[in-house]
């Protein structure tokens, strides 16, 4: 099965999975194209089946003469489909070597694609229900193009997919293959479960979502209408709406079920799904921006939702696939939010992190060092002006907003792309300005609303300097190599093994205050 053709040629980086052109699992086109086969089967089988049920003859007298032709035509179409599947399978090959993942596809229109491993933004293993039954999985490799996945391998055996993910992540992290034993498979980085969302809370969060409020209002409204008009018939019109709502709830439930988060040296692992399961891996430092959000009803139970911008996931919103992929935490308590924050931002850059972030999520006024909208501009935001505010730590900018729909946006300094100050004529009269941070597309749109104009201007300057300093610290896309580069005084880790994967885990308590920053990180902050 395996084409070991040019394995020998890639002598640069030996290893079992390296340099070899591999094929996806032979069953995968059938798992992917089962709908087509089922459609063909349905089309040709329906009549016969119906007649069988009605107790008629297998083949109608009228059809008897043509039956062989019909069967032949059906057979040819089926054969063509299967032949197409086999050809697609045969010509789809992939390779992980020399810092690249390469995929060849197509037999009429050929495509060869390669992506640099250290440019990985996220790597997902997806298992639709049918693939799950067969023990298969799809691997998606995301780079920063804000759209479709760069590399999709559908389907691999589950173990192979995980092995490939481990290999890709190890190569991307900068771990070199051991020259002594090139055939040794890369060990999957150990992981430590951090939190999970119990199904009861998920159901509760769905029932208390804004969608449910509209459902309730709609139901009350239609009951009132029917009572007032004395016409019960129009409930029929609500059936499609009810079906659509049920589907939306089901989709949210299916996507959010059994949500667990874990941390490993390769990054954050998220797993979820009831029928279709998905496992995402976000390598360290790939999260461009993050938001903690609380709709008003969730405040009763103290629940929050967290969403992230990741360059590879793009801006697919709503309840669909993109919506679930950009969800870092579908529903969680404040403690869960803090835990996730500590994973995303291991160095909060402030000694009093728990307080600052709590104030960012729940607080108002100047608690926790937030600078809010000046009181003279409270006419512009009569409810939210005490909430609208910002605070900058050593590593990230926190933007707080919303009186009822509370929101905290966190943007790491080294992820700031560009910035703009905006001021309209009314804002100028009140001496306030907005600061917009540009990040990759996604659900999070960082915007500081109505800050004092002088403060906004100062923040604009400082933020540019901070982002510059943070970019200088970040030297490599290979996160383990970067750790090694940042601690040159310490003993360099052995190049051919994972440098003590358990050690950084132990020190990652929920926002545990870190030691004072190394002097090398005290870059020019006041530019």
């Amino acid at each position, binding site marked *: 099965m395996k084409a070991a053709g040019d394995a020998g040629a890639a002598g640069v980086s030996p290893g079992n999975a390296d340099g070899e052109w591999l094929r996806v699992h032979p069953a995968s086109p059938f798992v992917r194209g089962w709908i087509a086969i089922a459609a063909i089967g349905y089309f040709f089988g329906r009549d016969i089946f119906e007649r069988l049920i009605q107790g008629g003859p297998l083949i109608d007298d009228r059809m008897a003469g043509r039956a062989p032709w019909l069967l032949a035509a059906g057979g040819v179409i089926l054969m063509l489909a299967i032949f197409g599947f086999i050809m697609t399978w045969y010509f789809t090959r992939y390779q992980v070597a020399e810092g690249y993942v390469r995929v060849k596809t197509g037999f009429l229109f050929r495509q060869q694609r390669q992506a640099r491993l250290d*440019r990985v*933004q996220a790597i997902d293993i997806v298992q639709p229900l049918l693939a799950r039954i067969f023990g298969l999985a799809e691997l998606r490799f995301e780079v*920063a193009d*804000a759209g479709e996945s760069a590399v999709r391998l559908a389907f691999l055996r589950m173990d192979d997919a995980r092995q490939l993910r481990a290999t890709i992540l190890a190569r991307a992290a900068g771990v070199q293959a051991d020259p002594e034993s090139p055939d040794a498979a890369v060990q999957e980085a150990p992981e430590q479960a951090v939190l999970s969302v119990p199904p009861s809370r998920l159901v509760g969060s769905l029932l208390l979502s804004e969608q449910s409020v509209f459902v309730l209002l709609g139901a009350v409204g239609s009951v009132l209408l029917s009572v007032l008009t004395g016409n019960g018939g129009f409930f029929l019109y609500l059936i499609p709406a009810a079906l659509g709502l049920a589907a939306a709830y089901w989709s949210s439930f299916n996507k959010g079920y059994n949500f667990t988060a874990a941390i490993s040296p390769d990054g954050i692992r998220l797993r979820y799904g009831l029928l279709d399961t998905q496992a995402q891996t976000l390598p360290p430092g*790939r999260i*461009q921006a993050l938001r903690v959000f609380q709709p008003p009803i969730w405040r009763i139970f103290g629940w929050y939702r967290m969403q992230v911008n990741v*360059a590879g996931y793009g*801006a697919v919103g709503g309840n669909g696939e993109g919506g679930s992929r950009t969800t870092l935490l579908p529903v969680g308590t404040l403690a869960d939010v803090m835990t996730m924050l500590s994973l995303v931002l291991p160095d909060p850059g402030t000694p009093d992190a728990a307080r600052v972030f709590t104030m960012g999520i729940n607080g108002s006024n100047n608690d926790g060092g937030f600078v809010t909208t000046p009181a003279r501009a409270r006419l512009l935001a009569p409810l939210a002006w005490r909430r609208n505010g910002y605070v900058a730590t050593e590593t990230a900018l926190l933007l707080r907003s919303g009186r009822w729909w509370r929101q905290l946006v966190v943007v790491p300094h*080294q*992820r*700031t*792309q*560009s*910035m*703009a*100050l*905006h*001021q*309209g*004529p009314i804002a*100028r009269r009140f001496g306030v*300005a907005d600061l*917009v941070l*540009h*990040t*990759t*597309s996604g659900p999070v*749109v960082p915007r500081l609303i109505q800050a004092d*104009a002088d403060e*906004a*201007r100062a923040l*604009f*300057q400082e933020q*540019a300097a901070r*982002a*510059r300093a943070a*970019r200088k610290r*970040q030297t490599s*896309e290979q996160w383990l190599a970067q750790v090694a580069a940042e601690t040159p005084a310490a003993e360099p880790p052995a190049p051919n093994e994972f440098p003590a994967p358990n050690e950084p885990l132990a020190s990652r308590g929920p926002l545990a205050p870190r030691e004072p920053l190394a002097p090398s990180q005290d870059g020019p902050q006041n530019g």
Partner: protein
Amino acid sequence: MPTKAIDPPGITWLRVSPKYVTVRLVEWAIGNVIAVAVLSLPLILVLQGWWTWPPLWLAVTVPSLMLILAVWRLVLIPRQVRAIGYAERDDDLLIRGGIFFQRVMVVPYGRMQYVDIGVGPLERWLGLCTLKLHTASAGTNAQIPGLPESEGARLREQLSARGEARLAGL
């Protein structure tokens, strides 16, 4: 306007070519003259007595409002062009624009993915060009219109060189 600008202090802005006013004027003419003419059509028809529906006051008000708006925009054009500015700092490029709705944008050189230069027919005739910067963010809508061609080419080379020197990942 006596109001305080939003710019960070201590920056000497480079201004775009005054010839860019011509480009904006032509764009204004194409847009607004046609709009006013189309909106005046009912007025003419009503005056000629061919149409009865739009009352005269309405037929007069709509195009005259449009005309006032158009003239207002026309008056603003030279000042809007004068308000466009850019400044190359050591690590980033600043771009500003607008009088009523002001915007100051900072684009770090290390964040630039690519630089575009676009030239329309009118700009070519005047020897101008428009420079566009792209980062990984779709929100970065950074463009400097009305640059003289030589300045545009210089800026492009300069930005590319600096971007390469300070290239950062995402």
